[in-house]
């Protein structure tokens, strides 16, 4: 089973640069994705993230997420088309020939464009963040966040989220096996499938809530919230400079295109 959002050991460019560099790279990319709403620029950003992943030898980890992202993108487009209208009407989901409701639910160019932009933006952010997470040991990431004077509670929150993603994945499989052993069959059709999730999702949520008490007590009793002193200075190499400079250059290009 492939665990999502987990560190993959390796020796590519992204593994060798300082976590701070990667953090800065990710922040710049995410900011650019939020600030621009140009379809082409977003596509370029996505391409840059993919090229960076490919150069870092982490391309496979990202391409595995494409099916999931396509589904999310389609849903985003669908929701915007249903809820937003603007520009020209391309066609209506309910043909105009039908009495009373005919001509309802128009699909407009504005909504399609906006939905696509949202999906692309989402893809850029997700991939950029994933690139950071798969190439950085969580411990190093936490140390860097501490060096940047990030409050310990937020750092712990981030760490715990990363730590429990694969645990929840596995717990989900265990629960689903236990229900399969009771003759449970996931339902048919979209609604059936959603209803069929109940016997798996409910125990998963209830068990997770049950862990919260122990987790909180452990954090206090092991003194994690005191935080350890961070005396080490961040040391950059030439590779770090290259990665940061390319991100800044990209930002400059995008800013230039936007203004022109």
């Amino acid at each position: 089973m492939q665990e999502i959002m987990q560190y993959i050991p390796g020796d590519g460019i992204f593994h060798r640069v300082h976590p701070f560099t990667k953090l800065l790279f990710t922040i710049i990319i995410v900011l650019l994705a939020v600030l621009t709403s140009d379809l082409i620029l977003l596509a370029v950003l996505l391409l840059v993230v993919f090229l960076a992943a490919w150069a870092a030898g982490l391309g496979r980890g990202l391409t595995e997420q494409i099916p999931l992202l396509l589904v999310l993108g389609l849903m985003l487009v669908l929701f915007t088309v249903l809820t937003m209208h603007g520009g020209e009407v391309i066609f209506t989901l309910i043909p105009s020939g039908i009495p009373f409701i005919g001509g309802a639910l128009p699909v407009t160019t504005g909504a399609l464009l906006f939905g696509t932009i949202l999906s692309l933006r989402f893809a850029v952010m997700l991939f950029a963040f994933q690139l950071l997470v798969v190439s950085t040991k969580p411990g190093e990431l936490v140390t860097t966040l501490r060096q940047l004077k990030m409050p310990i509670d937020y750092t712990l929150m981030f760490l715990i989220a990363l730590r429990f993603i694969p645990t929840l994945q596995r717990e989900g499989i265990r629960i689903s096996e236990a229900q399969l052993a009771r003759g449970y069959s996931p339902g048919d059709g979209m609604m059936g499938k959603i209803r069929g999730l109940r016997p798996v999702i409910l125990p998963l949520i209830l068990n997770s809530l049950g862990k919260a008490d122990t987790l909180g007590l452990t954090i206090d009793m092991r003194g994690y919230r005191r935080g350890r002193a961070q005396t080490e200075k961040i040391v950059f190499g030439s590779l770090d400079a290259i990665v940061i400079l390319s991100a800044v250059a990209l930002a400059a290009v995008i800013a230039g295109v936007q203004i022109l």
Partner: protein
Amino acid sequence: MIRIEDLTYTYRNRDIPVLKNISLSLPKGSMTILTGPSGSGKTTLCRAMAGILSHVYTGKATGTITIAGRDIMAYKGIEELSHDVSMVFDDADAQLIFTTVGEEVMTSLENRGLLRMDAENELTRLLDLLEIATLKERAPYTLSGGQKQKAAIAATLALDSAVLILDEATSELDAEARNVVFSILRQLADLGRTIVLVEHMIDEAAAFADACLLIEDGQITASGTPAEVSRRIQEKLPPITKRSGARGGELFIEAQDLVHCYGDHRAVDGVNFTLRSGEIVAIVGENGSGKTTLVKHFNGLLKPTEGTLRIKGSVCNGQSISTLSRHTGLVFQNPDTMLFEDTVHKEIAFGLKNIGTDVHCIGSVLAEVGLAGREDTNPRHLSRGERQRLALACVIAMDQEVFVLDEPTTGLDLAESLQIMEILMRLADEGHGIVMITHNPGLATAFADRVMKMSNGRFISSQEV
């Protein structure tokens, strides 16, 4: 070291106190076992000694607790207390916060204020001590239950506090690993640490501990040496009834040279196994020896990589879980992995509806597992032992020929474990075949017809009892 005087405690929004007039004194350098039925107040007493009741929870408390002469209320909070008292909780998974075992223990060492070099040395020593040096770079989600417990214990030992409390922190370890942990605790006690250990299987820990307290219904009802208290508990147990039904009837399960690989790892490596009607077979063995992987084949959750599996004579290598689960019911280790409905009745009806069976049998099934009349109770409000029996009821209501139970007594006390065994014996007498995986060698030899030991994916011994 720890002195409690006349402690009574009631949780918030409850009327009945969980602890009633508890007084005790645990000297420095002592190792004490706390035992008693589940729900009797052992965990609450541990949390009282760790200062959690005084500083985190908002229940009603009377009486005093002192640590080395200092009133627990005089500490500023749980963080200051953590310099003197540390605790390992029963849920190991929730106590591993970092993404590798090494980081987990290292962070505790650094929080203790050790310098880098000393911390590295201490890390190596602790991992070696608990025999988990090979797990240093492993992430928590890749560990077995027992390995997680060892990691949680190592991270807590790293704090090197004067008082160490373990609340059922060894429940998922095999007998050998438990002995390792107990002897480490004994050495720490000899070095002047004060150890409190909550345990159901006190006979195993008896040789290491100085004293034992029996807690029943929120009160200390017996205290003395572990052997004395153990005798008291044995006296109160109901006599074990002998089985009457015929054993060794129809052949239900037959596995020949069964192999299961996860990637390159041969988790089950050429196993021959048979189970007949009326038989109870216990499978024992260390964590990771392939026990669970093997039994998952019997209801089709896993398919053999090599070898053949016959259920009632017909080969069923490629058959799906929906077909095989009509013959074999499987109860997983933790009942909470399957309970999701809001009443006991609905919970059992879920499985029956899935296979299209009538729900009229629910009342009698509940009576069979000692939960008669509890149809409308919320499963999450039941005690651990009751939930385990409910999980069992959910499966036996489906009335398959074979029932497989993975660690059916983990986290249960002796009386509750015996209740489960009685149910299994009755099912065997009715002609069902029973397979049970267990870490409790005592239960295996007392109740099974055959005890089979697994190691590295193979059976290394089979013993008729």
